[in-house]
């Protein structure tokens, strides 16, 4: 009964989505304020019914209702409760219901936090979001209904959630990722709405920025979590494989990064207006493309949901309609836009342009590599080819190095024109960085690697320039502490974001070059040494979990004879799905991870054991979180708070804080 209620709720939501797409739009073109105002309540109604639908599905999982096909395929009575709940988004249908619910959530948020928008603009934006939601709900109802019953068959128990997914990672990674993916619909809607008005001013950029920054921050968190989860879950210490599904999330992120910078320039300088619109269209397009890649089965991936061409066709059709339509609208409406303010080669505008084009190039490269097997197979009539990490690393890393070099000087460059002296003086921080990093490598006794020194020095150069800029802003003021608060949150967001990149760079580089690992045979009593640590295999025991039994090894870690920690890697056997899983154990720390995993038992009481030493690997995800924090910080900026407050303070503070607070990115 509840299940049918959930299904019905989804249908009602569809009706509301139609109303939201149509009525406010009619209100805009017929200039009827009342119809336009309905957008707010329609958005609320849409969200409520989507939420109800989701809750009904959650209820089915909670009560182990295996007459629902989706529950039967993905759950089990012995499954721990937190995984029963996260199993809701453990496979295609339920995860897409989550996606759609999040869409409803963003739509509601836009309707609530749109005080700065004109009624007309708000109606347009919400109507567009409503129209997109129609497509999502139709997809659910027509091809991916999570509420389908298995009746007349009634399974005694469910097939269980894949053991790989029975993990904290499943609880957090997809929701964060979808918040980001779906959130890109908001700048998209703003961009399309602006195009429909025929007026391409910079206001749309001002409205879109907080939404885009937050969506991008969520996407950053989602990708970071995914990488971290893969690392500790998969048992071989990898954290990025350039898999089609990973790329599907990375491409919108790259475009999103270009977009947040471009929006900043458009808001502050009024330039790149049409280019920013195009980027906003691209960002959401890549989100949709991502959904297509993951759910259509066209590309092979460990992460992809089950193959279903019918669903793929639907998404492709939706893609054609939405993106094709947007790009056509773009071409028509942007034609004839007069060119805008000028700037010099050395300006910050140029820097952002460089940032944008490098990111778009990188995205193009990733897209090419991801789709190439398809292209090749079509070209050669059936021959298969693989494009994997060696290709992506070879192509992506050089582009990123160029970007990082630009990043070192960009945040502190000036609008319109930066004095050449600024650039020529960069040799000082560059040299300082190289010397510091070189010294560190020397004193730590690590083997020398030119690439590591180069990349780490670049990261340090970036940070040095940021620190110099920050301290100069604060140093000029008589009162240091209050001036800390005078800096805008957008500025702090920028600092955090860029520092986060530097931290992640250092993590990636160091771990790639200085990781040590050994796979070997160990019996109880054996000791192996790696990277200055000793790993002693104490004993093997059997362990019973909630829905598995496991062979667990006790491995003691010593450094110079002093006990540091004990690790317990397991080989688990899940009864319901008959899957065997390796559960690695990790001793995490800021500067290194120690990682142990079990292989197969080999004769006697010996086992194959893998031991890893991974320096600085946590910096990768720590950096990712800093970047995301930077994105979230920007919405705390006071200009997004009540308009009247800004008017009161503007007169008083404009003289005093002009040179301080106006340096925001």
């Amino acid at each position: 009964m509840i299940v049918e209620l959930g299904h019905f709720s989804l249908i009602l939501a569809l009706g509301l989505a139609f109303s939201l797409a149509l009525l406010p739009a009619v209100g805009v073109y017929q200039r009827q304020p009342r119809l336009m105002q309905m957008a707010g309540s329609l958005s609320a109604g849409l969200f409520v019914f989507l939420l109800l639908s989701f809750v009904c599905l959650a209820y089915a999982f909670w009560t182990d209702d295996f007459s629902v096909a989706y529950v039967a395929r993905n759950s089990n009575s012995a499954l721990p409760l937190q995984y029963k709940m996260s199993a809701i988004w453990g496979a295609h249908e339920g995860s897409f219901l989550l996606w759609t619910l999040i869409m409803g959530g963003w739509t509601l948020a836009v309707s609530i936090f749109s005080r700065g928008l004109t009624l007309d603009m708000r109606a347009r934006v919400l109507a567009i979001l409503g129209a997109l939601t129609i497509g999502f709900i139709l997809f659910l109802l027509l091809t991916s209904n999570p509420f389908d019953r298995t009746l007349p068959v009634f399974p005694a128990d469910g097939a269980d959630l894949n053991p790989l997914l029975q993990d904290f990672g499943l609880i957090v990674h997809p929701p964060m990722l979808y918040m980001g993916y779906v959130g890109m619909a908001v700048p998209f809607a703003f961009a399309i709405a602006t195009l429909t008005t025929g007026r391409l001013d910079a206001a749309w950029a001002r409205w879109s920025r907080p939404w885009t920054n937050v969506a991008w921050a969520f996407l950053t968190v989602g990708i970071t979590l995914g990488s971290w989860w893969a690392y500790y879950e998969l048992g071989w210490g990898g954290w990025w494989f350039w898999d089609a599904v990973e790329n599907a999330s990375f491409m919108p992120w790259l475009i999103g990064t270009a977009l947040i910078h471009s929006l900043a320039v458009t808001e502050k300088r009024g330039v790149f207006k049409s280019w920013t619109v195009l980027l906003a269209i691209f960002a959401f397009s890549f989100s949709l493309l991502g959904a297509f890649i993951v759910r259509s089965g066209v590309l092979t991936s460990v992460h992809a949901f089950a193959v279903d061409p019918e669903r793929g066709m639907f998404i492709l059709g939706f893609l054609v309609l939405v993106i094709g339509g947007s790009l056509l609208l773009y071409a028509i409406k942007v034609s004839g836009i007069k060119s805008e303010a000028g700037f010099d080669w050395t300006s910050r505008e140029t820097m952002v342009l460089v940032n944008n084009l490098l990111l778009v190039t990188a995205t193009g490269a990733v897209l090419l590599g991801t789709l190439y097997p398809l292209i090749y197979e079509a070209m050669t009539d059936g021959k298969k080819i693989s494009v994997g990490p060696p290709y992506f690393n070879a192509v992506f890393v050089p582009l990123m190095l160029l970007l990082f070099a630009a990043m070192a000087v960009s945040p502190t460059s000036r609008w319109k024109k930066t004095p050449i002296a600024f650039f020529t003086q960069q040799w000082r921080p560059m040299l300082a960085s190289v010397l510091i990093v070189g010294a560190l490598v020397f004193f730590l006794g690590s083997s020398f690697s030119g690439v590591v020194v180069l990349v780490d020095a670049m990261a340090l150069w970036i940070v040095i320039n940021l620190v110099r800029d920050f301290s100069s802003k604060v140093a000029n003021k008589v009162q240091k502490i209050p001036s800390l608060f005078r800096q805008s949150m957008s500025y702090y967001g920028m600092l955090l974001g860029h520092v986060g990149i530097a931290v992640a760079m250092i993590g990636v580089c160091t771990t790639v070059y200085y990781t040590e690992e050994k796979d070997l045979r160990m019996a109880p009593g054996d000791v192996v040494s790696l990277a200055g640590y000793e790993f002693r295999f104490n004993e093997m025991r059997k362990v019973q979990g909630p829905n598995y039994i496991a062979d667990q090894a006790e491995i003691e870690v010593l450094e110079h004879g002093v006990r540091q920690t004990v690790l317990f890697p397991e080989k688990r056997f899940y009864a319901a799905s008959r899957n065997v899983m390796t559960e690695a154990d990790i001793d995490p720390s800021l500067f290194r991870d120690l990682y142990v995993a079990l292989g197969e038992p080999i004769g006697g009481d010996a086992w194959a054991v893998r031991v890893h030493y991974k320096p600085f690997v946590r910096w990768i995800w720590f950096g990712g979180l800093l970047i995301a924090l930077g994105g979230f910080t920007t919405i705390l900026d006071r200009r997004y708070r009540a308009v009247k407050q800004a008017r009161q303070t503007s007169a008083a503070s404009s003289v005093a804080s002009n040179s301080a607070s106006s340096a925001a990115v």
Partner: protein
Amino acid sequence: MSDGNHDVRIDSSDRSVATNGGVNKSLLIPLAVFVGLVMILSVGFNLEDPHFLPSELIDQQFPEFSLNELNAPDRIVTHKDLKGQVALVNVWATWCPNCLIEHPELMRISREEGLPLYGINYNDESIKARQWLVRHNNPFQFNIVDDQGKLGIDLGVYGAPETFVLDANGVIQYRHVGPVTRRVWEETLRPVVDLLLSQASQSSTVMEG
């Protein structure tokens, strides 16, 4: 170090002006690129099963090997024993459920189709394999014991069952991956076999084994 952001900002609200030519051509580039992308993606729907790998060994001699025979442990069989006539080589194992599914059809082929069937017992235990054949009957002329899977690797095998069609010279002409059903035989394997047989009978030179 201020950033000089003091210029009067021109908030230009540019109106879109219809130019003489209508749409600026370069703005259609993104759309054109998108259309190309969609075409590539649609191609994906028409392609073969993504898990299917075409064989690298078509038109090549069967790989050399020298391994034991399953039911006669003292006897060594080699690649030469596969020559002489058009034949099927089937890769199977007791742990492979699809091999059991295709077995009746293999029995039928060995009885009715008049061509020899050779087996490769892949990554298996010989005792189990012999018992399996006793229980389910043996369609094979002989079985090659590939308990390490090395011959399988040389053949580019990636999962059992697989079936190869050899011509009289021992050259691999076709590989089928997956169970051989009646339908697979009629639609896929038999045409290849018939073609090879007709080619063999047309040529007047006698092939030496």
